[in-house]
């Protein structure tokens, strides 16, 4: 059985390699970037790796996220993050572009159970809206940072009663990414 560490390295390979296949057919308005990032929210500290497709001023991103709190990441929670972004004054010629984004993520946390082990993971969902800046360093390399506020919902199965325990509240998320433009 493949473990999460192996899956992480293979996903890295796939994220870097796959979007370059067939890039000649892409319109010049479409750009594809890959990124590594780190983010801190009220739910946890995560590393992420993913890609983003930009069409004119709009962007759609998908990332695999992995808990890196206390540097014990490869055994920790994992999940998926999606981002919709809009950059009102975007230009390829600008060094700094700003954008707003809507971010949804779901993370799965392993349950440690004694009595009711019918479910393997508890999940936490986050919905955030944010503002970000992207700074071009080289032709293909940029860094970006977003500051988000939003809401989280944690649903956990009680080990003692078998009932679902919900917890929700306001959330904040700070995100930093290193982006690499792989197709244009």
């Amino acid at each position, binding site marked *: 059985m493949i473990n999460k*560490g*192996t899956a992480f*390295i293979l996903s890295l390979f796939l994220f870097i390699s796959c979007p370059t296949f067939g890039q000649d057919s892409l319109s010049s308005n479409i750009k594809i970037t890959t990124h590594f990032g780190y983010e801190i929210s009220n739910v946890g500290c995560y590393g992420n790796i993913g890609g983003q497709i930009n069409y004119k001023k709009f962007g759609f991103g998908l990332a695999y996220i992995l808990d890196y709190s206390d540097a*014990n990441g490869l055994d920790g929670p994992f999940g998926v993050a999606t981002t919709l972004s809009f950059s009102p004054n975007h230009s390829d010629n600008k060094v700094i572009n700003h954008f707003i984004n809507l971010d949804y993520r779901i993370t799965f946390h392993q349950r440690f159970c004694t009595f009711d082990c019918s479910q393997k993971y508890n999940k936490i969902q986050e919905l955030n809206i944010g503002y970000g800046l992207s700074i071009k360093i080289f032709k293909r390399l940029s860094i970006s940072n977003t500051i988000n506020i939003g809401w989280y919902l944690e649903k956990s199965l009680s080990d003692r009663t078998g009932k679902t325990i919900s917890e929700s509240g306001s959330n904040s998320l700070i995100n930093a990414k290193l982006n690499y433009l792989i197709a244009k």
Partner: protein
Amino acid sequence: MKKLFFYTTLALFFSACNKEEKQNYSNIAIYGHGGAGFESHTNRLPANSFKSIQKAIEVLNADGVEVDLQIDSNGTTWLFHDQFLEGKTSGNDCFGERSTSYIKTCNYNLGGKIFQLQELMDYFSSLSPKPKVSLQVELLDRCIDHSLLIEQLIAIMEVNNAYDWVQIESDSPGLLIQLKAASKHFQTFIRAPDLTSCINLCSENGFDGIIMNNTDVSVKDVERVQALGFKIALFGVASQAEIKSALKKHPNQIQCDNIELLHRIMKQ
């Protein structure tokens, strides 16, 4: 093809790196510090609140919780850490000078009401098996009626027949001596800055165990305490390094601020 081979080799290398000899930690009881740990950027549940205690026991599968005791001017006992209400709640002034009706109106700034000791007793009595409680009682607060606190504590322990699942920890030997005099069934844990004085206090007064900061004791210290027939609980355990260090010592109890990480490390 070369790239695929490289990444696959790298992946196999990483997957093979994390093999360590599995330790048996089944004798260590895990207590959530203040419930599911004290408030932090990634923990928005107020310490000693119902939500935090519920998360520790029902979601994070802790064996028990370490909670702090306060008493109001009417003699009702509450789970609250600080001497003053301001800072963490909508209330103000010294806890011990406020009435029960006033405390009931106070909300935590992070959400939720202050939890009463009797409510905790009722909640844990509804669960099977009953989780354990380590009740920290300090007699440092000047605005608290200490004799009333001790009287109420003894009454609650008797009414709930809680001697086998609630232990009392304090840095006041006088308090623990009074509790032992009231009933020999009280499980008492002394907290002092150095281990030798703790051992002496246990031997002289018949206390059951010692509470120490994880950084202040070594593996040999823990073995020494256990060899004398006393239990030892370690606190100050939150980060990965602190958890690994505490587990190596094999204490009887760990009071932890990051129960999820502790489980993950114990499982490795």
